[in-house]
């Protein structure tokens, strides 16, 4: 019996290897034939998984890099904005006193235009009003021609009067001082009385008959009878009314913020009783005739 020669013997394996060599070469030729290489197509299919993994990895790296870059840019922006905000706040803090004083000066200027009097402006350099026997010190004195009992006003209302005048400074007696007395009148009833201080920011009107009708919230003006202030300057508002014997006890909240005053106007000594606002220029307010 003759052996076939294609088994697991050395000759058989050699023949199988030869066939595999020929078929492999032929398969290689077949796959690479034509314009569109099928071999290239097969390689593309085999390379698809690692290419997908590589693309995903590349996208992840780009995303991470972009995220890190965006975070760094955002942090730099935040730091820059914080520095700008801090600089602006510091500038505002530095400018705040000057701005407040400028606003007060503007209001004083407006008040000065409303009243036809020869005012003198002064700066409050010390304000110890709440201390025992305290008061306010102005930076003007006899060198500016000031004398005691000159009225002092602010844009919000009456402040007080000069108490003692030194060479270059003067002390001020505010309306809420216990020893301060000011002639006032009520806005509605025109009843007059004397305002006496009751403590910080408060005062009471004396000598108002109990037959008068006084309402809470009613404005209180100077009466001009004390010859310190002209008539009609705002003093404050009625905060409480109650009968007290034959007169009314009328409490008043002062209009001027005595704790926050920086600039004040000093009235001339012994002003006129009535002060009229300046007349409007001729022709102003009239419609033009055509």
């Amino acid at each position, binding site marked *: 019996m003759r052996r076939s020669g294609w088994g697991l013997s050395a000759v058989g394996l*050699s*023949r199988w*290897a*030869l066939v595999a*060599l*020929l078929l492999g*070469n*032929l398969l*290689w*030729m077949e796959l*690479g*034939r034509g314009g569109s*290489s099928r*071999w290239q197509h097969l390689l593309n299919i085999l390379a698809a998984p690692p290419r997908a993994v590589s693309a995903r990895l590349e996208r992840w790296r780009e995303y991470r890099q972009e995220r890190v870059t965006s975070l760094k840019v955002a942090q730099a922006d935040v730091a820059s904005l914080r520095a700008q905000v801090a600089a602006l706040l510091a500038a505002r803090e530095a400018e705040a006193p000057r701005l407040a004083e400028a606003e007060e000066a503007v209001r004083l200027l407006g008040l000065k235009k409303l009243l036809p009097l020869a005012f003198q402006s002064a700066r409050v350099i010390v304000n110890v009003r709440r201390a025992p026997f305290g008061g306010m010190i102005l930076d003007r004195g006899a060198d500016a021609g000031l004398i005691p009992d000159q009225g002092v006003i602010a844009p919000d209302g009456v402040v007080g009067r000069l108490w003692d005048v030194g060479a270059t400074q003067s002390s001020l007696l505010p309306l809420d001082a216990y020893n301060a007395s000011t002639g006032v009148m009520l806005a509605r009833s025109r009843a007059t009385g004397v305002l006496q201080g009751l403590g910080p920011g408060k005062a009471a009107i004396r000598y108002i008959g109990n037959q008068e009708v006084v309402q809470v919230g009613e404005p209180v003006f100077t009466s001009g009878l004390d010859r310190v202030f002209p008539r009609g300057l705002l003093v404050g508002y009625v905060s409480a009314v109650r009968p007290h014997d034959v007169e009314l006890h009328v409490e008043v909240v002062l209009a001027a913020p005595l704790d926050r005053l920086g600039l004040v106007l000093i009235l001339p000594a012994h002003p006129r009783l009535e002060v009229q606002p300046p007349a409007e220029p001729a022709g102003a307010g009239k419609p033009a005739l055509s």
Partner: protein
Amino acid sequence: MSAPPGTPKVRRFFLALLCLGAIHYTAPWPGPQAVLNTFLVLGLGPGFSSPLAGAAWAGAGGWVLEGSLRLYPHLGGTAFGNMLACLLAYLLLLRWPPHALKPYWGRQAVLVIVHTLLVHLSVSFAAGAHAWGTGWLWSLLLLPAWATVALRLHPPIHRK
């Protein structure tokens, strides 16, 4: 003193390796390169005791030749034609061992033609249309030289 029994195989191996290198380095001269390729396929390849070894050497020669040429869009055709021609020469050698030089020349001349046709056919299959070239003519012209070398310096073992 006789030579060891493995010596002709080793010589044939190194000669085939030398021929492979020569094919690579004679790429600028296609005529001598074709002669070397033919010598490897029809002269040395069939002399190996195993057809697998001969076909492998012939295939390697084809790959080196095509790789050095860099002309075809897809390689492998020359190697396949080389292997088929080598196997055909091996079968002929096994079936009718040569006894004289001139009949051997005639057989090798026919095998050169067949080898040329097979290579052309397989290259056309793998890479498409291509030029014939004059390598086959060089192989025929120099056939007495390389066939004589193949027969006398390294006689095929099947001839014994």
